[in-house]
Every structure is written in C-alpha cells, then in structure tokens.
C-alpha cells in the first residue's frame, strides 16, 4: 500500500495494454498493492509448533500505519509474562534499496536499541515467516508466469509461478494461488535453493471491511523441518486514525 499513486498510473497502462489477459506480474502487483486500510489495530496470536508438537504461544498487540512512502508498525508483547511490555518497532520504506529501520525496547534493560539486519530472508521472530513472506518483497524482484487458472473449493484462482531474478535468493521459486477479484493468496508453495519443496502457506481466514480485506488467520508449515507457525488476528480495527506520534521510541517505552 506504499506506492499507490505510481502503481495506479502503471496499472492504468497495464489495464489498457492487456485488457483481456492479465500477466503474472499484473496479478502479483494487484496482490502487493491491495488496499489494506490506512491504519490497523489488532491482537496477534502467534503459535509456533516444532516437530515434536511442542508449542509456544505469543500474544502481541500491534499497530500499523501507512505513512506516505513508508509503513510503520509497532508491536507490544503481552505474553509470555517474562517478555511482557517488550516492544518492537519497524519502519519499512518504499525504496527497495533502503533497509528497514528496527528498534527493540527491553523493559528489563529500560533501553531502546536499534537492531539491524541486512537480510529480508531472516525469519520473523523465530517463526516460519521471513520478512519477505510477510509481504515486504516487491513483485519486481521476481519474474512471474501464470501457470494456469484453477478452482479450489469453488474459489477461482490464478496459479502464478514466481522466479527470483537474484539467483542467490533463498527460494528458487514460489507458486501462489491468487483468488480472482480479491487478490489475496489462498495458498503459496515455496521451493528452496535446491528446488526442493520447502514450505506451504495456507490462508485459513480473512475478513472484509468494506473494500479492505484483512487476512486474519494464516499458517506456514516448513515441510523440511516439520515446523509450523500460525498467525491469528483478533479485535481487528481499521482506519481508526492512529496518530503518527504513536510510532516513536517514547511510545515503545510507555506501552500501549
């Protein structure tokens, strides 16, 4: 939802040129640019499960806001108890060459610290999602092909294969089932560098708020490690007009 204006122009042309057939890139851009509201407040429950069936559950209160050429996100841990009030802030930029800015506040240390990573391929908080998987990867970084159209449980989908332009990228390819007209991924399969099947993302639930669709339950299963993560949103509120000053180091310390 960052580059809405440029994309709108682009889409206008694309729409004129390929009025009938949508290309893979068109579809993936539609997904990338699907409106998700100006801001969102929700409770996130993240359930991690390893191959032995051990579970870890984290409860997080999160705030998101789209601000021009950047997205800001702030997360407050509610449980487990020993990390309560730990907060995490992320500023993600439309400029692909600019790395995200990230801060963490550790209440036991009473300090906000910047953390940085050079890789979008890092896993998010020990889950099976990378930052890229969570929607940070721009479609222009891959080459997309529509493999076929398919109906899954009565839902019509485009099946799009995406191959990264950078050969060193962690996935050799992904295949996404995109729901027609809704532009949400119903499922997605990831193949590792050696082209072996790695993991599968499954959409379990979504909610429509007017023309905004919010995915409220999604699971990722790493088939090689037999490890999975479920992310569930509850109490979702959109467009409540969260103030810009909510996304500062001071607020990280203060809590929600």
């Amino acid at each position: 939802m960052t580059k809405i204006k440029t994309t709108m122009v682009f889409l206008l042309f694309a729409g004129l040129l390929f009025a009938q057939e949508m290309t893979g890139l068109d579809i993936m851009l539609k997904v990338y640019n699907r409106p998700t509201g100006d801001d969102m407040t929700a409770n996130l429950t993240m359930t991690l499960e390893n191959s032995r069936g051990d579970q870890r559950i984290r409860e997080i209160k999160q705030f998101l806001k789209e601000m021009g050429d950047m997205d800001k996100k702030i997360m407050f841990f509610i449980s487990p108890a020993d990390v309560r009030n730990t907060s995490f802030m992320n500023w993600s930029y439309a400029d692909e060459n600019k790395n995200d800015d990230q801060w963490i506040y550790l209440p036991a240390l009473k300090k906000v610290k910047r953390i940085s990573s050079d890789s979008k391929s890092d896993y998010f908080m020990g889950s099976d999602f990378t930052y890229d998987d969570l929607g940070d990867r721009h479609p222009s970084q891959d080459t997309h092909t529509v493999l076929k159209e398919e109906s899954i449980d009565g839902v019509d989908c485009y099946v799009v294969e995406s191959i990264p332009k950078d050969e060193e990228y962690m996935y050799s390819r992904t295949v996404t089932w995109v729901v027609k007209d809704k532009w949400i991924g119903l499922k997605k399969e990831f193949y590792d560098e050696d082209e072996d099947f790695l993991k599968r993302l499954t959409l379990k639930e979504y909610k429509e708020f007017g023309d905004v669709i919010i995915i409220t339950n999604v699971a990722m299963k790493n088939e090689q490690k037999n490890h999975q993560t479920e992310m569930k949103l509850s109490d979702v509120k959109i467009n409540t007009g969260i103030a810009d000053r909510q996304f500062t180091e001071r607020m990280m310390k203060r809590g929600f």
Partner: protein
Amino acid sequence: MKNLLHKLLQTPKISLIIILALTVFFFMQMKSKASMETNLDKYMPQNHPAFVYSDQAEEWFNIKDGIIIAIENTEGIYNTSSLDKIKKITKQLQKMPEIEKSDVTSLYTADNIVGTEDGMDVKAFYKRVPKSEEKLKELQQKVQANEMVMGRLVSADENVSLIIARIGDDVFTQDFYNRILDLGKSYEGPENIYVAGRPIVEGTMALLGPADMQKMVPIVIVIIMLVLLVLLRSVKNTIFTLLVVFISTVWTFGLMAFVGIPIYAVSTMIPVMLIAIGVAYGIHLYSHLEMTLLQKSHLSTRDAVEDMLSEMWKPVVMTAVTTAVGFISLLTSQVYPIKYFGLFTAFGVLSAMVLSLVMIPAGLMIFKLPKIKKPKNSTQSNTSFAHRFSNGLLKNKSLTIVITGLIIVISIIGMQKVWINSSFLDKFETDSDIVLTDKFINENFGGTSMLSLVLESDNKGAFKNSDALRVVDEMQDDIESLEIVGNSFSLSDYLKRMNKVMNADDETFNIIPDSQELIAQYLLLYEMSGDPENLWKVTDYDFRKLNITVQIKSDNSKETNKVIDKIEQYRDEFAGLGIEMNYAGSGYKALVFTDLILEGQISSLLMSIIIVFVLLSFMFKNIRAGLIGSVPIIITSLISFGVMGLLNIPLSTTTALMSSIAIGIGIDYAVHFIDRYKINLAKTEDMKLSLGKTMHHSGRAILFNAVVVIAGFMVLLFSVFPPNRVLGALVSLNMFTSFVGTLTVMVLLIKYFNLFSKNNQRKENDND
C-alpha cells in the same frame, strides 16, 4: 560316536561329496545373501538406558557428528582466493543430499552479532567475496572482534579456517566418504585442505582395517602353509589341515547369511579364531598317525586310520566342545554382534571338529597314507628330547614354580594398569595423515571430539533462571581450565554475548544477566535478529533442558573420563537446583559401549573358566583333572592382560576378544595332554615315564600347533593398521603362553597332585 566315525570310513567318497555339497550350498548362501553392517549404531544395545537417553537428546538438540574441513593458507586466510574457496566448499557441502543446508557452518554462513553505539547488528561476515584490500581488512577486523567465531572458525594465527558439516548417523557411506575427500582435494593449492572429524575417522577405520586384513590374511595363510609343510612333511596333510579351516569358515559365514545375520566388524575376527584353533585338530590327528606309523610301519591304511580315530576322536571332540562352550558363554554379552560372534565361532569350531574327524580320515582313505620320510635319527632324538625335557622339568620344579609365580605376580601388577579405550584415533599410526590432521586442527581450534552434557529440570523456564545459568557458566570455566578441553558452548555463551553487545560491547557485561526478564528478553531479541534455529541446539522451547557441548582435543577414553569427572563435581549442586545431569553424543556412547563389551567379556571369561572346569571334571570324571586343566587358561589370560597393562595396550573391542582365543587354545592343549597322559599312565602305571611319553606324543603336536600359528600371526606385526598388529602380537603371545604353561606348570601339577594315579604311586616322589 566312535562307531559312526568308523562307519563313515567305509564310504569316504560319499563323505567327501556330502561335505563338498554342503560347502557349495553355504558358499552360495554367502555369495548371494551376505551383507556387511557398517553402521556403528546398530552395534549398540538399543534399549540400554544410556543409549536411549543419548538418542533422545540427539533428537532434542539435533546433536550430530561433524565432518571438519580445514583450509590453511600459510600467508593468512584473508585473501580473495581463500575466502572464495571457503564459500565454494560451503555451498558444495550444502548441496550434498546427505547434508542439511543449515548443518553447514563456516565463516561464510556464520552470523556476526556486533554491538553498535545505539544497538545491535546482525550481519553475515561476507556474501560476495571481498576483493579490495580495505574490504579484506574490514572482514579481518570483524572476525577479530567476535569471540564466537575467532578461535572457533578462524585460528588464532589467522592461517586456518574451518568448514563444519554435521551429518546424521545413518547417511555415511563409502561413496559419500570418497566424495568428501575428493571435494577437499579439488581445492588444494596453494591452500592446504585437511579433512577430519569423527565420521571421517570412523570411515577411514572401516575402510583401512578390513583392507589391511585382506592384504595380510593371504600372507598369514601362506606362512602357516609353509610351516605346516615343514612340520608335517606332507603336502596332502598340509592341504587337508588347511581345508578344514577354510571349509569351516565358509560354513560359518554361509550359515550366517542363511539365517540372515549381517557380518559385523567383530565377525571379521571369526576367521582369525578358526585359523588359530582349527589347525590344531589336523595337526594332532596327523601327528598321532605319524607316530603310530613310525612304530608300526606294517599297518594297512585302514588299520592306521582306524587306530587314529579310536585314539584321537575323544580328545578332539573334548577340545572342540570345551572351546565351543567357551565361545557360547559370550551369549551373556549385552552386545548383539558379540553374541553372534560367540555363537558362530562356536559353530565354526564344531564344524572344524566334524570336518577333521570325517574329512581327514576320508582323505587318507582315498589319497592313501602320506609317505613318512624317516629322518635319520629324529625319532630317537625326539623321544629322548621329550623325555629329557620332562625329566629336567620335574627335577627343576622349584625353578619353574618360582618363575611362574614371578610371572603371575608381574601380570597381576600389570593388570591393575589395564585401561579401556574407546578411541578411534588411537587405532591409527601416530604419524598417519588422519592423526596428523586431527592434531593440526586440535592445535588451532577447540577440539575435534564432542561431549554433550544435558541438563534437565521439571520446571518450565528453569534455564531462564540466572542462578542455574551461573552454575553452568562456572562449570564451563572450570571444564575449560582442563588442558584437554578446547572449548565449551551453551546457552550461557549466547546470553553473555548478548549482554555485552547490548551494553555497547563493554567487557564488564560479558556475564550472565541478573534477571529472568532480561534473559527472556535477550532471547527474544536473539530470535528476532539471529538464526533462531541455533537456540534449539542449546535449549528447548520450555527452557527445561539445556545442552552443553564440550570440545575435547582427544577421543581417548582416559581424557574423556577426566572431563566427565570434572563435570560430576557439579552433580550435587545441580541436584540442589532440581536439575538432573546426563550425557549424550556418539563419543559418549562409544565410551559406554566399550565398557559394556568389556564387562560382558570379563564376566564371560570368568564364566567360561568355570564351565571349562566343570566340563573337564566331567569328561575325565575327576575334579582334580578339571582344576589342573583350567590352569593353562588362567595363566594365559593373566599374562595376556598383564602384558597389555605393562605395555600400555588399552582394552578395546578387538583386544578384549583376545581372551576368547586364550581359552580356546589353552583348553585344547590341556585336554590333549591330560587325555594322552591318562592313556599312557593306564598302560605304564609309571608317572614319570607317562609324562615323558605324553610329552613326546602330545607335547610334540602342541609344539607344532604353537609354531604354526605363531609363525602365521607374527606376519600381522608388519600390518599398516595398528589394531591388526596388536591382534597378531596378542594371538602369538597367547599361543606361546598356553604352550609353555601347559608343558611346564600343568605337567608339574599333574605330578604333584598324582593325577589319575593309584594310591601306591606315592613312592615316585622319593626319587626327586
């Protein structure tokens, strides 16, 4: 039995054809079904608590053995070529189907967690290989500042860097081993590439041992054949004596294949046992035949062979049965390969007995008696030598007793020093490539052998508690103070690093944080920024379990036990915190496994001595005969262990099995001698004369037997594989001591206890 053997004599051809048919059958079985079992884990008793625990812990923390590839550039590793090689080797290893991508660690894959003024930074050391001078310098500085990498992946002198690929127990194959070695070789020059690590050592051993045996065994057989030829003075006799050994070996392995039991590493010792034990039957039979013919040259073939059978079938059956029972006592072992080893060797020994009693007479019937070349004055001088020896022995009995007593005392002292070694590396030549590579890596890095210490508590979050972690940290410092320990690694190292990094790299914060909250928050932070998978190698989801890895510079059992002793000092302190301690990992399993083998070996040794005593008493219907007959075995075992202790040869799976040979051979000598003595005494009723006669008859055959086997096994002293050398030396030693013990100490005991003599024989003693 006797009647049956005589009946078989009437149809020698049919007997031979049946034996041939059976041999062909077993050979076909062996050819089509035999399989080697090389996975060492299959040897371990799967339900032993130590193994069950270790296997479980290996699964919890993904504990695996690492193949270590070291890349050395004497000009330093911070140059474009060496860094490129590190990257390429890493990627190639990651692509191998046997290796999981995340199990490869190198400077290329490692995360560099560094503190910055306002926070923390997690980056790769390099993605694209740095080319410019400044970039290389920058990388060098980054490595120097990170103690989680410096000294672990890069050596202190910055000339060596490691690439570690951890592999599961079940993926190792010969082909994989070759591919790894080829991979290393292809990157040689100007850098030196070394390949090491437990899987490589195990792999090399699995290849080198049998390969060396394959080379040496034919030479052993040739030497035995030549010596037999000289002693038996007959090509036919030599061939039949050896055929007994070969065919019994084929039957044994054929039966193994037939019932579907794979060939384990210890099973390769079966032929060794059968050679050492099996030639005896032929030698005794032919020796008796020759002596009979020398006295009664007019005998027809049939009569001579019948005489041989009636005189000799009993001692041959007795020796075989007692030897077999000795091996069967190995069934008490908890280790399946050892059970099978005992069972099948017993089968082999009994086969050799049957073959000797059927095939040798049949062969004599068909191919006629060997021509006895009467050596000029041999019989006379032989006889007189035997008598002179036996008389001299009786005269100087105090000398024999003193020497024997002395040897026993020294042996018992030596036995105290016997130690057990489960080391693989110690099995190689000290200047072999594999030992030198290991030494090289141990000099530059933490250590090539791993011991995992697993801590467990009933309470969730136990290892987020700073009190518990402080004890862990203190213990790690303590272990690391041992010279043999290079490094140790646990959750505490992560926390100390995080604490330091989050406090602007201040060294005073390189300690365990105070509060559980801070620890939990650091861990959360680590998960956000590092590779969270790493965390599950040191703890579990609930922080109830902890895995502490200790890197040891040797896989020698003595050294490993030193480390364990140190760790054990903390058992009570951990118990006070509600924490239980256990060990895991392949090195530890090998340690326990070796103990198990030896425990079984020693108890079965004791048991077989008792069984032998009972059997002998029963066979000779005389308890004294049982006691006296057991003496050579006891002396042989004592000396065998004593010499090992004195020469610092540790007990291992192969050397432990040597005691079985001591029993097998010792008992044969004793039985032959006692049986012949009983016959002679019954005839002459003169103890001295009987002893001399027996010395001439059985003593000669025993001497031949000892000479043949010792000559053959001495060949193994030229083996390139040290365990095979030890094997050769110990078999020869056991043969020698059994031989000497039987013909000296046992003879004296027979005399002293007036074995088999009637009451009135006392007067004999007055002559001395």
